[in-house]
């Protein structure tokens, strides 16, 4: 069952902030975040394991709300290089650690 990402797309001006959400109806073991630029392969950003961790990567951070089975990716003071499609991947508690990918959120940063 695919996790639900929102919004589907977002357009920002350089320097603005954005939040991308990833929610699941099933109990999560971990949430993974990737960014894919047009014509390129997905690039790993971070993993959050169950336990409500928050992690950071440059000006990109994420949280994992175990009660809500939801993760949020925070992009602060966005840069042009942040443009791309962001995917969350979820590993469910009852799975064999297989990654289930969300539909993606397209982020466009304008100067």
């Amino acid at each position, binding site marked *: 069952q*695919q996790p639900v990402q929102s919004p589907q797309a977002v357009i920002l001006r350089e320097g603005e902030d954005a939040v991308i959400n990833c929610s699941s109806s099933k109990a999560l073991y*971990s949430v*993974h975040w*990737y960014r894919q630029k047009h014509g*390129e*392969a*997905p*690039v*790993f950003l971070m*993993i959050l394991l169950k336990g409500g961790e928050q992690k950071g990567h440059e000006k990109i951070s994420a949280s994992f709300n175990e009660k809500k089975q939801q993760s949020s990716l925070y992009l602060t003071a966005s840069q042009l290089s942040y443009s791309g499609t962001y*995917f969350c*991947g979820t*590993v469910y508690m009852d799975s064999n*650690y*297989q*990654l289930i*990918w*969300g*539909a*993606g959120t397209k982020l466009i940063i304008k100067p």
Partner: protein
Amino acid sequence: SAVISQKPSRDICQRGTSLTIQCQVDSQVTMMFWYRQQPGQSLTLIATANQGSEATYESGFVIDKFPISRPNLTFSTLTVSNMSPEDSSIYLCSASGTSGGSSYEQYFGPGTRLTVT
């Protein structure tokens, strides 16, 4: 981390033929995966390539259509057999379980863009 290369980077093939895609990792990895991605869409897992045993296929994908080999811990191949235009897509190889890294991070190859005419 791991650096992954794929060959070919793109190909145009005629229907009914087969294409084998190679995936090479610069270090030994525990897991290797094959995905398909349509432009603008999410990734769909085809199968997990198991070293020394048969691949594990996802629903909707079968071994006769997508035979996979993984002879060692750094190399895998995916064959797309008896191709039809519906097989036109980007095929991505990924790997996880690198030495010194997390077991869960997946690193991706650059992809193979396949067009079937």
